[in-house]
């Protein structure tokens, strides 16, 4: 059972809804971005930055802190929204001009406070996360590393090089989370490039596999606890999500992978999200 109280859960759901709202406004403001994959991972980010990770915006370099790598760098606006919820970025982030240096199209570790790694080119983040996990182990200071990957990103061979190496080094302070929304630019992941059976693949590579509903913050929190309890090997959360989650006309539609949002679309989307922000979570 999750150690989360009903109040904690409501708080995470509210953070997720706020991440969704801020992501969409940021994307609307700049006239480009990736709404689908930002919405699908909002609940995962809400859990990580809403209390699961040991991070502190007042002491961003503190020893023993946890690390996060957004391997799917195109969900940058969702990351900035989460960092804004966590206090690394201003709460009124959506009022920044769209070309503000904090709001890079893909995350840049030198330009945005709280961003741990520059990403955007897919496939590279898990290797970097592994390096961070090895460094934390050398330092013996207990930091854990969370890497959020897209499921389309699993087409990249480097992901599997990193998966092999992480198991080889038995890093149990590394958690990969696959935002398994099932869609990529050209359609369903299985149609573009078959990556199933995913669970068997990660298991065969030596990972502890946890399957979870990635749009349920309570379930994600519990899955992360489950991952933490396994020692001697890395863990992966195969987090089943809905692309465009929370906005009915974006859900499950690949065309919302990368697309500008019109003013009327934003209005409709925010109206849907507002009811959830107040009412708690997506159903």
């Amino acid at each position, binding site marked *: 059972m999750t150690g989360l109280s009903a109040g904690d859960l409501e708080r995470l759901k509210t953070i997720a809804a706020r991440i969704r709202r801020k992501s969409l406004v940021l994307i609307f403001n700049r006239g480009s971005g990736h709404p689908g994959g930002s919405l699908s991972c909002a609940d995962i980010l809400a859990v990580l930055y809403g209390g699961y990770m040991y991070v502190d915006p007042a002491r961003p370099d503190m020893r023993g802190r946890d*690390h996060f*790598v957004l391997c799917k760098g195109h969900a940058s606006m969702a990351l900035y929204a989460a960092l804004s919820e966590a206090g690394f970025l201003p709460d009124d982030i959506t009022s920044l001009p769209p070309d503000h240096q904090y709001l890079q199209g893909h995350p*840049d*570790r*030198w330009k945005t406070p709280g961003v*741990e*790694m*520059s*990403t*955007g*080119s897919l496939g*590279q*983040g*898990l*290797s*970097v*996360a*592994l*390096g*961070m*996990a*090895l*460094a*934390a182990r*050398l*330092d013996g200071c207990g930091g854990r590393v969370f890497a959020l990957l897209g499921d389309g990103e699993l087409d990249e*061979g*480097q992901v599997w*090089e*990193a998966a*092999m*190496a992480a198991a*080889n*080094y038995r890093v149990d302070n590394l958690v990969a989370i696959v935002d398994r929304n099932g869609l990529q630019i050209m359609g369903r992941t299985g149609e573009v490039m078959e990556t199933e059976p995913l669970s068997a693949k990660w298991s065969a590579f030596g990972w502890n596999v946890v399957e979870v509903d990635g749009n349920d913050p309570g379930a994600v929190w519990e899955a992360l606890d489950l991952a933490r309890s396994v020692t001697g090997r890395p863990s992966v959360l195969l987090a089943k999500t809905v692309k465009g989650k929370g906005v009915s006309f974006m859900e499950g539609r690949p065309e919302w992978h990368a697309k500008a949002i019109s003013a009327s679309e934003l209005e409709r989307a925010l109206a849907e999200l507002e009811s959830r922000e107040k009412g708690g979570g997506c159903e």
Partner: protein
Amino acid sequence: MTKTAAPRDIVGKTLIELGREYPELVVLDADVGSSTRSAEFAAAFPSRFFQMGIAEANMAGVAAGLAASGKIPVMVGFAVFVTAKAFEQVRQSVAWANLNVKIIGSHAGLTVGLDGASHQAVEDVAIMRSLPNMCVLDPADAAETESAIRAAVVHRGPVYVRVGRLKSPVIYETPPRLTPGKAVVLREGKDATIIACGIMVARALEAASLLDGDGISVGVVDMASVKPLDGDCVVDCAGRTGAIVTAENASIVGGLGSAVAEVLAEKVPVPMERIGIPDVFGTSSDPERLMERYGMTAEHVRSAVTRVMARKRAQRGRDNG
């Protein structure tokens, strides 16, 4: 008999020394540690050595992650694979992320010889030089290779160090001072200047001796720091001698020759000639024979000096006529 030493044989010893001085230094290998000599570091510091298998792309990313967490990772591999195979990883995770990763590329240029074109890095200098934030060092001999690895570790930010495989003539008895962006003038001259890097520095010095016999006074510059380039030194040499020859164990497209040409064209357009791998992939042969085949011997450097001086005279004749 000229004294020789293989630059790669200095790598292990130097890494061990630096490992003692810098507790945060770690080394990564892609299953070539016995050839690159990084295995010597593994024996000395087993917990700070990471065998990444034959997977350079992942190695570059892991190095970036280690650097992001405060380590000084040195990834050592064959020049062609740590630069070209892992190029986009080095581009995003190392150079753009501006992380403190050191890349040592062994078996650079034609020195790998018989293994042939697949293993001969001809373009590594050009592609590493094209990356913002990246420093590129191509040291002249074993002692300067030690200086280059030390300079790389001291420098904050990504550095690529090229290392030759073969025994090559000793130019420096002890490791010289090597600072990124600073050239070393080995010989002054009046008539022309040879600007060289890597194993071509020895050939440049040999050519200068041959030209002494012809009554021609030639300066020789060791431009181990290909990037940042010592542009002031290039301008100074061009101003004083009015004729420049570059010599490198890499493609003349994008390498030292190109870097020097960029400075000359913008600041002091004097006649110049480039010696190096002439925009071709290599082939399997003994390295010395490859140097002969691609026009990279001391004799070829000497001819290039003669040609560039003829152009200088012709130009001055026109200017005065």
